[in-house]
């Protein structure tokens, strides 16, 4: 065995030094970077939220001016949707997908590295708008004509348009990577009925990305053309139509809600069986419900537009489709409750966050059903009731599961346990703070407080609730701070985690924490949906043969449905090309943003040269096959 490990150590060298860190294609390193970068954006978006809460704490407050306030709520929303929720879940996917399916890396390790660089650059490009005094300020859905060339004359909207399209490249590439990895690289024996639920949800999310993001890209291209090249797509005085933006945006925007929510479903479905000591009840139903949600989510976008004057018949159709989504969501919910019911719950911190998700998502789901009813929607749309609703579904429905995932997989990713008491305190501060901040928004919305106002008068009875919410926001922020402190303490003095501290059922817990660069010494063969809970092989029966593969940087490729081992896949060496390509693309993006033709041309030239170099096959024939 020792010689096998030695051979693997030689071919799968761990990164040493800055250059190998920059050029590494190790999915675990990239996954950690993804998580860290998204968490960084989470912190600055959260600071933005606290600034807004300070402004709103008192009536007629002058802490932020109206323009700054508009910029901050736009950056807060855009960041939380595009730079936090989606990438943080793709961070988990990057780290966990190959481990959970028993592979040694993603299908396209270099594309994976490229995704992270582009994600980082796009996020920094968006936030650099602050230094140009040009924050985008028309809200995260950026409606025309307000964002058109006549009404928004600065560069703010251009920062939004260019960095979002730029970011889309990263998200799309990441999605294709996830799908192909999950299709073609599963451990032998991991047939479709044995795929971990987190993989299923990531695959459905990735398909939604592939088909939903292009609508956003199209909208952004058209608006970019309107702003930079005098086209008239959204210009009503020239027979253009602002409503087209809303359609395109929400054809993307509603599936995007599920793009964010479904991986969270995956995390919840992963954690519940482990902490209930019972396999997931109704696994096939949860999978089918996930797929159904992914499909139906493309047919509900008009429920964001009930108040804009679309014919009633059209509205009714979309209202029906919206209510329809409660059926698969309900199936998932009942299956989780049944799993907990059949099992014996261990109340550790990951499960606490799942519990928080249960409560918050139930409330958010309930107000969601209310919004599916057109008369209610028309009464409370664009009020704080909406703000309350989408924070319950997005923060409660996705960020709480993200924290559950962080607490659950932290030992796997770092090799150290988080301090459990601190983790529980984190949960309670976040849970109480969240409800203090967002529950009163339901009431304020019903009282008529519109969203996106930078201040309000003191004689209309909104003061006390707003002040209370601001206090709640700081309680929530303190909870997040506790997590950061806990993470730092754990890094330097945390208890050693061992391979499987939670006695979990999926393959990532079969390897050391943190996993070695090659993940698995021998590639596993799977014979159930909970491989680590399988009973030991009875006496006299043959162990399932594990697969050795130690003579090169290689892993197995398998067939799509039955996961029969099909071929040996050579894995690429570390490569600087992803970094260079991202730099070329950044120069191109800057050129487009500021109308600098030379930068545009230089960016295209760099990207072209790098792509040719990247796809040019290496000297050996084996490596050439990766193309």
């Amino acid at each position: 065995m020792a010689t096998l490990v030695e051979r693997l150590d030689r071919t799968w060298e761990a990164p040493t030094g800055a250059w190998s860190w920059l050029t590494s294609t190790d999915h675990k390193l990239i996954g950690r970077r993804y998580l860290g970068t998204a968490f960084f954006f989470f912190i600055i978006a959260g600071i933005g939220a606290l600034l807004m809460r300070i402004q709103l704490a008192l009536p007629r407050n002058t802490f932020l001016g109206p323009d700054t306030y508009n910029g901050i709520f736009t950056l807060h929303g855009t960041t939380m949707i595009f730079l936090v929720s989606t990438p943080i879940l793709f961070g988990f996917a990057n780290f966990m997908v190959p481990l959970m399916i028993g592979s040694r890396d993603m299908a396209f390790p270099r594309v994976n590295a490229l995704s992270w660089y582009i994600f980082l650059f796009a996020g920094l490009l968006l936030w650099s708008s602050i230094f140009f005094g040009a924050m985008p300020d028309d809200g995260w859905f950026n409606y025309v004509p307000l964002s058109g060339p006549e009404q928004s004359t600065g560069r703010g909207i251009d920062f939004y348009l260019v960095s979002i399209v730029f970011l889309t490249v990263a998200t799309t590439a990441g999605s294709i990577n996830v799908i192909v990895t999950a299709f073609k690289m599963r451990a032998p024996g991991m047939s479709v009925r044995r795929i971990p639920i987190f993989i299923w949800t990531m695959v459905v999310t990735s398909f939604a990305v592939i088909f939903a993001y292009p609508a956003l890209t199209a909208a952004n291209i058209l608006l970019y053309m309107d702003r930079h090249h005098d086209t008239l797509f959204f210009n009503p005085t020239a027979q253009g139509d602002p409503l087209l933006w809303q359609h395109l945006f929400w054809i993307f925007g509603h599936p995007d809600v599920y793009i964010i929510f479904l991986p969270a479903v995956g995390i919840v479905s992963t954690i519940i069986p482990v902490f209930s000591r019972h396999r997931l009840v109704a696994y096939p139903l949860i999978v089918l419900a996930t797929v159904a949600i992914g499909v139906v989510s493309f047919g509900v976008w008009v429920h964001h537009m009930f108040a804009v004057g679309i014919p009633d018949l059209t509205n009714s159709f979309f209202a029906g489709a919206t209510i329809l989504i409660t059926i698969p969501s309900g199936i998932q919910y009942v299956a989780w409750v049944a799993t907990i019911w059949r099992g014996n719950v261990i109340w550790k911190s990951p499960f606490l966050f799942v519990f928080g998700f249960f409560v918050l998502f139930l409330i958010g789901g309930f107000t969601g059903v209310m919004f599916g009813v057109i008369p209610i929607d028309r009464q409370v749309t664009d009020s704080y009731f909406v703000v309350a609703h989408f924070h319950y579904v997005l923060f409660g429905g996705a960020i709480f599961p993200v924290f559950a995932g962080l607490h659950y997989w932290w030992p796997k990713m770092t090799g150290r346990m988080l301090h459990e008491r601190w983790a529980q305190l984190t949960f309670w501060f976040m849970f109480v703070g969240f409800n203090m901040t967002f529950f009163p928004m339901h009431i304020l919305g019903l009282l008529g407080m519109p969203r996106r106002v930078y201040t309000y008068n003191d004689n209309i009875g909104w003061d006390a609730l707003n002040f209370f919410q601001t206090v709640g926001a700081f309680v929530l922020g303190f909870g997040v701070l506790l997590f950061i402190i806990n993470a730092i303490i754990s890094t330097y003095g945390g208890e050693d985690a061992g391979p499987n501290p939670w006695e979990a059922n999926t393959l990532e817990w079969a390897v050391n924490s943190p996993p070695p660069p090659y993940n698995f010494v021998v590639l596993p063969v799977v014979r159930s949906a909970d491989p680590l809970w399988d009973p030991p092989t009875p006496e006299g029966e043959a162990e399932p043969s594990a697969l050795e593969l130690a003579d090169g940087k290689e892993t197995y490729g398998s067939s799509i449905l039955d996961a029969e081992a099909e071929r040996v896949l050579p894995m690429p060496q570390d490569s600087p090309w992803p970094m260079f390509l991202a730099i070329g693309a950044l120069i191109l993006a800057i050129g487009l943003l500021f109308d600098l033709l030379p930068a545009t041309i230089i960016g295209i030239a760099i990207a072209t040269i790098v792509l040719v170099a990247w796809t040019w096959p290496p000297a050996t024939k084996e490596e050439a096959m990766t193309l």
Partner: protein
Amino acid sequence: MIRTPAAPYDTMSPGELGNPPGWWGMLFLVFTEAALFASLLLSYFYERANAVEWPPAGIEKPELILPLIMTALLIGSSITMLIAETAIKRDSQTGLIVGLVLSVLLAGGFLAMQGYEYTHTDFALGDSVYSSAFFTITGLHGIHVAIAVLMGLVLIARASLGHFTARNHNALRNVSLYWHFVDLVWLFILASLYISPHVL
């Protein structure tokens, strides 16, 4: 039963194997690009449904001879791409290179004619929603053809260095998939932007 692949796939017969990851990656890239063009054509018809007159007053209905010649060039390039692929499956290096060169020339001819078309329209980009949609959609497609041509040139370089064999020509298969997709999109653009104003 678990089948263990003892040998690298180069020695296995292609019939036993599914497509390699790279081909699947290209397929999903094509899917997302198809959704992008679908969104743009949807925008075209959406704007058109709102218009009083389409094309707007003062603009002739699109001329058809030039775009039909362009269509013939693109379809021709898809056929020559197929010829290149068939040739390398029989290990014919000459057939491969001839097919690739013809494909690049035909697609290059398409781009040249598009350039001619752009300089001979009686309307400019910012004149109307109609002209905005016309130039934006055909322009974006033109960029895709240009990218395909670039990939074709790389393939010609690699083919002349003997990189491709009957068993392993994955790069060619992936480019060919993209190539046919770009040509297929053109047929939708032809039907929507050029032909439909005459018949609908």
